[in-house]
């Protein structure tokens, strides 16, 4: 039987980790992730899991230890945020290229400088091209559910790629919410046993990971990573379907809300989608045809499916919690990628980008309402007055 508990996002993630019972966890503390691993350290000390818990001396070492353990054939997890993720950067690529199915809880926090411990998405957007799968979570429940699914996705023989599960620093990582925790046995049955295909410690069949690989085969190895990414979308959906059936949920590549008959929509990931949903209901009460699309899977980017889901709209407003400095119009990465996806799939809809909430700046319903009202105007005139707006910033 599942039960409902009042848990912070981090505690929900730690609970998922306890149920998954990974072989190795290597991590280094960083706000706002710290309490995840600290809670998990208690589980280890109390003998509730069989995990080898490695307390390393930096995130660079954490990810390195994860890669080593994963290559050896272990089921491996870690957690980090912001500068911790930045310090892992070198090894993130190695994890993906070595096809290590590591699962990471990434609690989104602004990158320095200046120093800031609060939420934005600059950290995760820096690893867009690293070869990791990236999934967003609106709240603790989704972080918990996504983490459980991530193990299956990462370890699927057609994928074998690391997965990062994001949630918003403090906003959900530290907020106490009602989370449905499934029965331990059910979760264990769902994730199953990990059978590594090419473990380093299989002494009968010696292997090597990551040796010199120049113009002879490096390129082919990269091509194989592409293939794994291509498979990933199918696998994510298969795993979601099984999960939905078993635990009565409704995961897909993204989550539409009152989108079907909408004329304008906002696209926003993680916790702000929850606020936007409230605004949608309010505006619907006024008779305005507004909807919401909350991305779940960011890597691999479901371009065609997104284009399909948005093709009937008259205006689209994307909300980005980071900036791609120097990119077209200094817009945010979500906007840029979505704009390309719609254009290439022949969907012609006026689009605008709204950068918001950098460094944890609060985003309030009335500000999201403004985004909707802008979009409604665009829908009427067919003209975008301003491509990129930086919401609630002193200029």
């Amino acid at each position: 039987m599942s039960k409902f508990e009042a848990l912070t996002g981090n505690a929900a993630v730690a609970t998922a980790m306890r149920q998954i019972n990974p072989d190795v966890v290597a991590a280094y503390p960083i706000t706002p992730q710290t309490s995840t691993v600290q809670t998990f350290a208690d589980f280890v000390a109390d003998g509730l899991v069989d995990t080898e818990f490695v307390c390393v001396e930096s995130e660079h070492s954490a990810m390195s230890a994860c890669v080593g353990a994963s290559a050896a054939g272990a089921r491996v997890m870690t957690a980090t945020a912001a500068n911790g993720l930045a310090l892992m950067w070198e090894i993130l690529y190695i994890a993906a290229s070595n096809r290590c199915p590591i699962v990471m809880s990434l609690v989104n926090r602004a990158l320095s400088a200046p120093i800031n411990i609060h939420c934005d998405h600059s950290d995760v957007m820096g690893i867009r091209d690293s070869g990791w799968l990236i999934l967003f979570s609106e709240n603790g429940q989704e972080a918990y559910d996504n983490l459980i699914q991530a193990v299956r996705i990462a370890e699927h023989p057609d994928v074998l790629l690391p997965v990062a599960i994001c949630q918003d620093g403090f906003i959900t990582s530290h907020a106490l919410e009602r989370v449905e925790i499934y029965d331990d046995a059910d979760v264990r049955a769902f994730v199953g046993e990990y059978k590594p295909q090419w473990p380093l410690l299989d002494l009968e069949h010696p292997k090597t990971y990551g040796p010199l690989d120049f113009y002879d085969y490096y390129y082919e190895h990269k091509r194989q990573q592409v293939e794994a990414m291509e498979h990933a979308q199918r696998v994510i959906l298969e795993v979601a379907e099984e999960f939905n059936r078993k635990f009565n949920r409704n995961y897909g590549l993204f989550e539409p809300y009152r989108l079907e008959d909408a004329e304008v929509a906002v696209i926003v990931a993680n916790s702000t989608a929850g606020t936007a949903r409230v605004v949608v209901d309010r505006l619907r009460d006024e008779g305005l045809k507004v909807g919401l699309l909350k991305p779940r899977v960011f890597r691999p980017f479901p371009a065609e499916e997104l284009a399909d889901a948005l093709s009937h709209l008259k205006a689209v407003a994307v909300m980005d919690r980071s900036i791609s400095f120097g990119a077209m119009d200094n817009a945010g990465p979500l906007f840029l990628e979505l704009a390309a996806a719609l254009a290439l799939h022949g969907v012609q809809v006026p689009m605008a980008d709204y950068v918001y909430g950098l460094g944890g700046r609060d985003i309030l319903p009335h500000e999201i309402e403004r985004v909707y009202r802008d979009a409604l105007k665009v829908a009427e005139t067919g003209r975008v007055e301003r491509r990129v707006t930086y919401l609630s910033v002193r200029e």
Partner: protein
Amino acid sequence: MRRQRRESRVHERYLRHSKKFPNIWCAGCGIGIVLGAIIRAVDGLQLDKDDVAMISGIGCTGRMPVYVDFNTMHTTHGRALAFATGLKMVRPEMKVIVVMGDGDALAIGGNHFIHAARRNIGLTAIVVNNLTYGMTGGQYSPTTPIGALATTAPYGHIEQPFPIAELAVAAGAAFVARSTVYHVRELEKYIARAINVEGFAVVEAVSYCHTTLGRLNRWGTAPEMMRRLKENSVTLKQAESMSEEEKRGKIVRGIFVEQEIPEYTRLYDRIIERAQQRTSLQVETA
């Protein structure tokens, strides 16, 4: 010569009153005492504030530069010495004080610490050793004693700690001293000497974190932990006549090394000079 009586509120002249006060430190924390000692040391040396740079990494200790009116840089966790090295290379005449927690200096930034010492670059490294990662909530650090409870070692710590001062000596630093936040005058004196040293100078300031590690281990309140520093420490001289057994668990205070060895930026200048001489010779003979 009798020293002049010091004005009682010397700190006031060095603090950035416009900035984030009250500070973030827990009431009773030792870090403020170290900051006070640094300020008085700088004041005693009559340095111009603008000739002093204070660089920190991240942590409770790392917050120090926020509050003082020197040239300051708050960098990333573990990299304070690396940033400071860059600064010193460009402005070798500057007094560069680097403040770090034990985690900052010896875990995530441990590599920079030993190499700055080996290179003997003229930085003053002040390590506030509170035996834990204070800011992130009492996880064990490279200086946590064996047997202590930490949030990442709920049943007791099993790893050997680094003795910071001894490590710095072994790595080749020009000046190494250790004192505690109880022995404030001594600490201030060591810091002043360290700032005046030409090469890499390390002052280990043993402190405590009553909020995290102290609470976990029931080591008592801040004053009680302060008393431990007093009762549990011996001078280098006293330590000389003690057996290994007697010295176990004691904090040994004093100046561990003070040597004149060539400082890195000076050596570097000489290399530039030599290279320029050679090229000008070549030009002449061409």
